[in-house]
C-alpha cells in the first residue's frame, strides 16, 4: 500500500519525524526521575527537580544508601532489581510527603519515577474494581466493535474526568478517523472526523506501541532537565522511552494549545503488535491524573484492543470462510474445464464475486480476456507490463492505482482498485480484479494538504482545526485482509493447475512422439510388404493371360478385373503412404513461380489425354512462398480433377486465376464439369471420400485430402464450391513469407 503522497511530507515534516522524542533530556515537572545502575542502585542521572520535590538528595556516582535514602525503600528497590518483574510500584514516605514510586527497566538502567500521591487520595484499586468489573460485564462478546468502543469512551471519561474522550482508528495511510466519542459538551465534537497522518509522526507511533499511555497534565509546563543528560562510557543521552513523565516535543505542546486543550492523555490500542488506534482524552484546562487511574486507563485500553482484535479476527474469519466457499467452487469448475481461459470466461459471476469486484481480466501471454467492467485491452496490457516491470511475482493490491501508477488515472472510474496475481513470471501473465472509484467526502479537522512551515523553515503544528471538507477521488473500496489472503490462495491453486496442465501436455507430447515413431515403422513396413502381393497378383495374372491364348471373353474379362483391382490397390497403398509421409516431411520453402508450375502441370495433363480437348484459360499468377514439389502436387491434383470432371462436357474449360484476400494470395481453379452438390462439401477433403462413382471417374479419392494437408502444412487454407452439373471451383491460399518460415 502506498502512503498518501498528497499529504505534507516535506523536509520540515521529515525533521519532525526525526525529532529525538525518546531522548528529550528532560521530563515534565509532574514527577521526578532517577536513573539507577541496577546492581548497587548507583545514581547515574536524575531530574533537576528531585531535591525540591522530594527533599532527597541523589548525586550521580552515589548509591541511594549513601545518599541517605530510607533503608526500607532501597531494600525494596534492590529486591525488585534482582527479580524478574518488569515493573515496580510502591508508596513511599519522603521528607516532603507521600509519594508513589514507579520503576521500569530501560537499556541504561532502572528508571524510577516519583510523583506526589494526591492529598485526598483518589480511588484505590479496591474502589476502581467494581467499575471496571461493570465495564467488563458490558463487553458482551457478541457486541459490535462500535458498541464496545462507545462503552469504553464513556467509561474512560467517567474514570479520568476528562472533558472529551475520542477513540480513533488509523487507516492504512495513517490517517485517523474518530469512531467513538464521549464528552460533556465543553469541547467540540470530532466524531466522524479525520486527522491527517502527519499529526502523529512515525517515531511517536512507534513509541505509542511500546509505552501504552501518555499523560500531559498541562501543555504550558516547563521541562525539567536531567543531570547529567548523558550517561555511561558512551556518554549516551538518557533513553526515556519507558518513562511516564518523558517531556514531549514542543511542536506537540503547540499543537495542543492550538487545539484549545491544555491536558491530554492517550492510551494506545495495539492489536497484533500494530498501533490500531488511540483513546485520546482532552480537557480545556489542566488535569492531573494519578497513577492508579492511569493504570486503570491502560487496562481499559488493553481490554478494548483485545475485544476489537477478537471482533475483527472473527469477522475476517467469517469473511474468509465465505470467500473460501466461492474459491472452492471456482477451483472445482476450473479443474473440470480444459483451460484457464475457459474457466475464466465461463464463470464470470464467481470470478468477480471472489474479490467483490466489478470486473476481472486474464492476461495470458499475448491474450487478454475480460469480464465485467474493466479498462480497455491496451490499458490492461500496459498495466500488466508495469506489474511485470515492478517485479510483481505473487500478488499486488492497491485501492488507489492512479496514485501508485499515474497512467491509471485515465481509467480511475473502472479501476481505482486493483488486485493482481502473477500466474506466470516468464510470460508476465496475470489475473486481475478491478474495483471502481468510490468518491468519498471526508471531513478533515484541518487541511491535510497544507504544510505548516514558516519562512524560517521551522515546522509548526497546524493552528486550524476547522472542518475542511474534501472529496477523495481515485480511491476504491479498500481490499480486506481476508480478500488479500484469498487472492494469495487462489493464485497458488491456479499456478498449480497451470503446472499440472503443462506436465500433462508434456506427457501427451511424449506419448505422441512414441506413437509417431510406431506409425513411421508401420508405414515403412506397409510400403514394403503391402505393395509386393499386389505386384505378384498383377504379374501372375498377366503371365496367365499370355499363356492361355484361347481364353473366352468372360475368362479374359475376369483376368482383366483381377489385374485392374490389384493395380488400384497398389495405387491406394502408394497414395496412402504419400499422405502419411506428408505429416512427417519438412517443407523446404522458396519463392515459387506459379506460372511456370501451372504450365508444366498443364502440359503433363494434356500429354496424358489421347486427344486433348480442354480449353485452358490461365491468368498471370503472382509468385507464392512454399515447397515446390508439394505445391506442384496441389496444382496437379486440382487441375487434374478439373480436367477429369469436365471431360464429359461438350466444351470442357478450365480457368486458373489468382486474387488477393487480406494478407493471403488466393489461387483459383474453376471448371465447367459435373461439379458437386454443396451438401457434400464437408466430405471433399476427407481421405478416400469420393463424390462420384468409380466407374464414372477414376481415382483413389485421396488427391484433395493430400492437397488440403499440404496447404494446411503451409499455414494456408483450401476450399471447394460447386453446383451439381454446373462445374466446380477450388480456391487455395498461401500466406505471405514470414520470419517463421
Amino acid at each position, binding site marked *: 500500500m502506498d502512503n498518501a503522497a498528497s499529504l505534507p511530507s516535506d523536509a520540515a515534516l521529515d525533521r519532525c519525524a526525526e525529532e529525538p522524542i525518546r531522548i528529550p533530556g528532560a521530563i515534565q515537572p509532574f514527577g521526578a526521575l532517577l536513573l539507577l545502575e541496577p546492581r548497587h542502585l548507583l545514581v547515574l542521572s536524575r531530574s533537576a527537580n528531585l531535591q525540591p520535590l522530594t527533599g532527597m538528595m541523589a548525586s550521580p556516582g552515589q548509591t541511594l544508601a549513601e545518599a541517605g535514602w530510607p533503608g526500607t525503600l532501597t531494600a525494596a528497590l534492590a529486591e525488585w532489581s534482582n527479580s524478574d518483574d518488569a515493573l515496580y510500584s510502591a508508596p513511599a514516605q519522603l521528607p516532603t510527603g507521600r509519594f508513589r514510586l514507579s520503576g521500569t527497566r530501560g537499556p541504561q538502567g532502572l528508571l524510577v519515577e516519583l510523583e506526589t500521591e494526591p492529598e485526598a487520595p483518589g480511588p484505590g484499586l479496591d474502589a476502581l474494581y467494581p467499575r471496571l468489573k461493570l465495564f467488563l460485564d458490558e463487553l458482551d462478546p457478541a457486541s459490535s466493535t462500535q458498541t464496545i468502543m462507545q462503552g469504553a469512551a464513556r467509561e474512560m471519561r467517567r474514570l479520568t474526568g476528562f472533558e472529551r474522550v475520542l477513540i480513533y482508528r488509523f487507516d492504512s495511510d495513517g490517517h485517523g478517523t474518530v469512531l467513538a466519542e464521549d464528552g460533556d459538551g465543553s469541547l467540540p465534537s470530532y466524531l466522524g472526523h479525520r486527522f491527517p497522518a502527519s499529526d502523529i509522526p512515525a517515531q511517536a507511533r512507534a513509541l505509542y506501541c511500546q509505552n501504552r499511555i501518555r499523560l500531559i497534565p498541562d501543555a504550558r509546563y516547563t521541562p525539567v532537565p536531567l543531570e547529567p543528560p548523558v550517561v555511561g562510557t558512551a556518554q549516551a543521552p538518557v533513553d526515556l522511552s519507558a518513562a511516564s513523565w518523558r517531556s514531549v516535543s514542543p511542536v506537540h505542546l503547540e499543537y495542543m494549545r492550538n487545539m484549545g486543550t491544555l491536558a491530554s492523555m492517550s492510551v494506545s490500542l495495539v492489536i497484533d503488535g500494530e498501533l490500531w488506534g488511540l483513546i485520546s482524552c482532552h480537557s480545556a484546562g489542566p488535569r492531573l491524573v494519578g497513577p492508579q487511574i492511569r493504570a486503570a486507563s491502560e487496562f481499559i485500553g488493553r481490554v478494548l484492543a483485545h475485544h476489537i482484535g477478537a471482533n475483527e479476527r472473527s469477522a475476517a474469519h467469517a469473511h474468509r470462510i465465505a470467500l473460501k466457499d466461492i474459491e472452492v467452487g471456482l477451483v472445482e469448475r476450473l479443474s473440470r474445464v480444459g483451460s484457464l481461459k475457459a474457466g475464466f470466461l465461463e464463470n464470470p459471476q464467481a470470478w468477480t464475486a471472489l474479490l467483490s469486484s466489478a470486473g476481472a481480466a486474464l492476461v495470458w501471454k499475448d491474450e487478454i480476456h475480460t469480464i465485467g467492467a474493466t479498462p480497455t485491452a491496451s490499458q490492461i496490457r500496459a498495466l500488466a507490463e508495469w506489474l511485470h516491470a515492478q517485479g510483481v511475482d505473487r500478488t499486488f493490491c492497491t485501492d488507489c492505482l492512479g496514485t501508485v501508477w499515474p497512467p491509471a488515472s485515465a481509467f480511475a472510474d473502472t479501476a481505482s482498485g486493483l488486485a493482481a496475481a502473477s500466474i506466470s513470471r516468464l510470460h508476465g501473465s496475470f489475473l486481475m480484479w478491478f474495483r471502481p472509484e468510490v468518491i468519498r467526502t471526508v471531513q478533515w479537522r484541518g487541511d491535510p494538504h497544507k504544510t505548516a512551515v514558516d519562512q524560517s523553515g521551522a515546522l509548526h503544528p497546524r493552528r486550524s482545526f476547522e472542518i475542511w471538507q474534501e472529496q477523495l477521488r481515485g480511491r476504491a473500496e479498500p481490499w480486506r485482509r481476508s480478500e488479500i489472503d484469498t487472492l494469495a490462495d487462489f493464485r497458488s491453486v491456479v499456478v498449480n493447475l497451470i503446472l499440472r496442465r503443462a506436465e500433462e501436455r508434456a506427457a501427451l507430447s511424449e506419448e505422441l512422439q512414441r506413437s509417431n515413431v510406431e506409425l513411421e515403422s508401420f508405414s515403412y513396413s506397409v*510400403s*514394403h*510388404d503391402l505393395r509386393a*502381393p499386389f*505386384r505378384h497378383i498383377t*504379374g501372375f495374372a*498377366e*503371365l496367365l493371360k499370355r499363356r492361355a491364348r484361347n481364353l473366352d471373353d468372360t475368362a479374359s474379362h475376369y483376368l482383366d478385373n483381377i489385374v485392374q483391382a*490389384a493395380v488400384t490397390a497398389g*495405387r491406394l497403398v502408394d497414395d496412402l503412404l504419400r499422405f502419411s509421409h506428408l505429416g512427417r516431411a519438412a517443407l523446404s520453402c522458396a519463392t515459387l513461380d506459379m506460372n511456370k508450375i501451372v504450365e508444366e502441370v498443364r502440359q503433363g495433363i494434356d500429354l496424358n489425354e489421347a486427344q486433348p480437348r480442354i480449353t485452358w484459360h490461365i491468368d498471370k499468377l503472382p509468385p507464392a512462398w512454399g515447397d515446390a514439389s508439394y505445391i506442384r502436387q496441389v496444382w496437379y491434383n486440382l487441375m487434374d480433377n478439373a480436367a477429369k470432371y469436365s471431360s464429359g462436357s461438350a466444351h470442357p474449360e478450365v480457368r486458373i486465376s489468382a486474387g488477393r484476400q487480406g494478407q493471403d494470395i488466393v489461387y483459383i481453379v474453376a471448371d465447367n464439369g459435373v461439379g458437386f452438390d454443396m451438401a457434400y462439401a464437408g466430405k471433399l477433403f476427407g481421405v478416400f471420400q469420393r463424390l462420384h462413382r468409380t466407374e464414372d471417374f477414376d481415382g483413389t479419392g485421396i488427391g484433395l485430402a493430400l492437397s488440403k494437408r499440404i496447404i494446411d502444412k503451409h499455414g494456408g487454407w483450401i476450399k471447394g464450391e460447386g453446383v451439381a452439373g454446373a462445374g466446380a471451383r477450388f480456391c487455395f491460399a498461401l500466406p505471405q513469407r514470414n520470419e517463421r518460415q
Partner: protein
Amino acid sequence: MKKIKEVRPILLVEDNPHDLELTLTALAQCNFANEIIVVRDGAEALDYVFQQGDYAARPSGPPAVILLDLKLPKLDGLDVLARIKADSQLRQIPVVMLTSSREERDVVSSYRLGVNAFVVKPVEFGEFSEAIRSLGMFWAIVNHPPTHPASFGGQDVQG
C-alpha cells in the same frame, strides 16, 4: 564381339519366391546371354561375391551386375551394398537396388552407399518387365567392366 566366357553372370538377390519367379520370367523374356545366379539372402549374396562359404569354389570373377532386393533376411540389401562398396576390388560391380519401398530414407541411404541405380518395382507386370529389361540391357550388356579396377570410382558409369 565378346567371347562367351566373357559373358559374366547376373547375380539376383531376392528372398520372395513370387518376386523371384516374376523377375526370372522377365529376365528370360529378355534373352540375355548372361547366366542368372540366384541367392536368397544377404549373407549368401556376400558369400557369392567374396567367393566364400558355399561359393568358395565358384569360378572366379565378379558378376556383370547385382540386382539386389532391399529387404532381405539376415543381412538386408543396404548391408550387402555397404560391404560391396567398401571393398576396393568389388566396388566396381554395378549394383541395382530393386525394392517395393518408396521410402525416401532407403533411396537416400542407397545412394549414399554408392548404389548404381534404384528401382521401385512397378505394380503392373508390363512395366516391371520393361524395367528389368532395360536395366539388364544397360548394366549387363552395354556396361563393360574396367580393365583396371582401381582406375575408377564405384559410382561412375562406364560405357
